[in-house]
């Protein structure tokens, strides 16, 4: 039994507490994998999500397709809706499975254990993001492929590399925003739940999920400056339907890609700062363990 209790004995607690940079990075990377594990495992152990997270959202996207069909919209608009429907998967993942996740963890009693452990809490959030990405991607691909086939959407892509790059940049910026929201929601408690609700349809609207964002005028410009979903979706539409008569008024995909890079950097740095500040505030106010706040 004694060998089970001993692991890499160190001469003193000071030696054990003194980690190299390599050890710190390795722990954070392991944490990402570790935290993604329950998400990914859960997909295979309870499969009802296939119906509720893939089939039903496909039907919801189809509703907007038929709205355009009802008014005899040009075919590229069907493509806009399908692409928007695919990207909703990632936005919902960010707000449901990341933004309020730390608040969920507090309810479950896991938050204390996370903060009492030596890894960076951002790694935990990265792990959640990666784990959720698997489900979201499945949903996005299902919507994209099935809806495109069913509704005759044809893509015209000239710059594949840029399109894929913009997609991943959009995700990076989205997940960065998710981390910022997670730290804010850590403090807001019950408001987090309602604010998550608040962020669904209004963000769809200002992000131009089902229509070209240029139609929103100044509001659209503000959204492009602030919301990863808005700018990413607009760039992907311009790239995926290169031959469409796309309304002018938004930046080119290249500029929007740069905007996404800036957003990613800003959100990740902001997340790092807010997590640190808000952790200290949470420790000061005792909010890491009060469950029903």
């Amino acid at each position: 039994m004694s060998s089970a209790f001993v692991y890499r004995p160190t001469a003193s607690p000071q030696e054990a507490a003194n980690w190299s940079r390599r050890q710190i990075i390795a722990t954070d990377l392991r944490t990402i994998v570790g935290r993604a594990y329950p998400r990914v495992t859960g997909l295979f152990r309870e499969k009802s999500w296939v119906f509720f997270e893939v089939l039903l959202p496909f039907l919801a996207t189809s509703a907007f397709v038929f709205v355009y069909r009802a008014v005899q919209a040009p075919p590229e608009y069907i493509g806009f809706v399908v692409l928007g429907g695919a990207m909703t998967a990632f936005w919902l993942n960010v707000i449901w499975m990341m933004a309020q996740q730390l608040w969920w963890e507090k309810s479950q009693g896991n938050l204390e254990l996370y903060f009492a452990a030596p890894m960076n809490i951002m790694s935990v959030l990265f792990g959640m993001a990666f784990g959720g990405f698997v489900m979201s991607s499945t949903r996005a691909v299902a919507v994209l492929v099935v809806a495109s086939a069913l509704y005759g959407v044809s893509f015209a892509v000239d710059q594949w590399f840029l399109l894929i790059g913009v997609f991943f940049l959009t995700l990076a910026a989205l997940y960065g925003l998710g981390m910022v929201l997670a730290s804010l929601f850590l403090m807001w408690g019950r408001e987090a739940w309602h604010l998550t609700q608040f962020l669904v349809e209004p963000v769809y609207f200002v992000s131009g999920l089902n229509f070209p964002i240029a139609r929103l005028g100044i509001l659209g410009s503000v959204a492009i400056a602030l919301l990863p979903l808005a700018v990413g979706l607009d760039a992907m539409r311009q790239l995926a339907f290169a031959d469409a008569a796309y309304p002018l008024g938004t930046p080119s995909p290249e500029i929007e890609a740069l905007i996404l890079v800036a957003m990613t950097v800003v959100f990740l740095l902001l997340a790092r700062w807010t997590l640190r500040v808000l952790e200290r505030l949470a420790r000061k106010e005792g909010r890491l363990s009060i469950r029903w706040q």
Partner: protein
Amino acid sequence: MSGIDAPIEPGLGSPTWGGFDHSRTRGRGAADIRRSFATAARLGWLMEANWTDPILFFIYSVAKPLASALILVVMLDVISGGAKPEFRAFVVIGSALWAFVMAGIAGLAWSVLEDRERYRMLKYVYVSPSDFLVVLLGRGVARVAVGAMGALITLAVGVVALGVPFDPGTVNWPLLVVVMAIGLTSIVAVGVFMAAVCIQSRQEAWSYPEAAAGALFLISGAVFPLAVLPAPLQVIGLLTPFTWWIEGVRQALFAGSLSSVGGDGSFFALVAGHATPTTLELLAALLATGTVATLASIVAFRASDRRAKDRGLLDQTTGS
């Protein structure tokens, strides 16, 4: 009269009480149901409304349905340039009413998940003398009330700012009352069904009610006439109580507006021989589909309840 000859008072207050009072196990029937429902509704409202200040609560309650309506309005304006006001009115009314549907479907389901995962109270509620379904219904009513508020305000914004034509003098109040009564029952019934699903599912089930509402959105004629859909989907839509409810509210509030069920080339027109349903047809279809939905939901809930007891799901916490 005192001592041994004194009449024995029932219940705990009796000075001669010294054993089990059987009358406590009988309950009070309808009075207990009313009280359980009222208590649960009050609790639901407190939980729904006390998390923030009233202004923010108001914004939160209205933003969602209003944003949904605006998405559709802009979609239409993008194509038609505002040239088809009747379409705009159609989508605003439909998306406003859909706020009701969303609130009803999600309300009960989220009550189950909240009580099980967050507050860990589900098992205590379950073993209380109150009927579990009655308590859930009470809890769900609060969210329906919030949904109603959002729907009304969206309709008001639609009338005032988005060009929805409304003449209070032409409202068919009796039809509206009957349609709302049956329709809300159907909405709550589907909410019961979703609650039954959520009892069996894990924490990620939070998104299931919205996903279900999104799917029903496709076939309910909320934002486009059913005639646009392929025939098989139109049939499914006609078998859904929400379709008839939305149609009924449209006909009651906005007489003469575009029909979601009928129209030239619609399956309904093919079967009924005329373009739009009469009031009688509408009410009959709503009652029939609503009854089926309600019965099916109750059966599903009881089956889920049994399975949950069998598998010990009522006090589990999941989460990933």
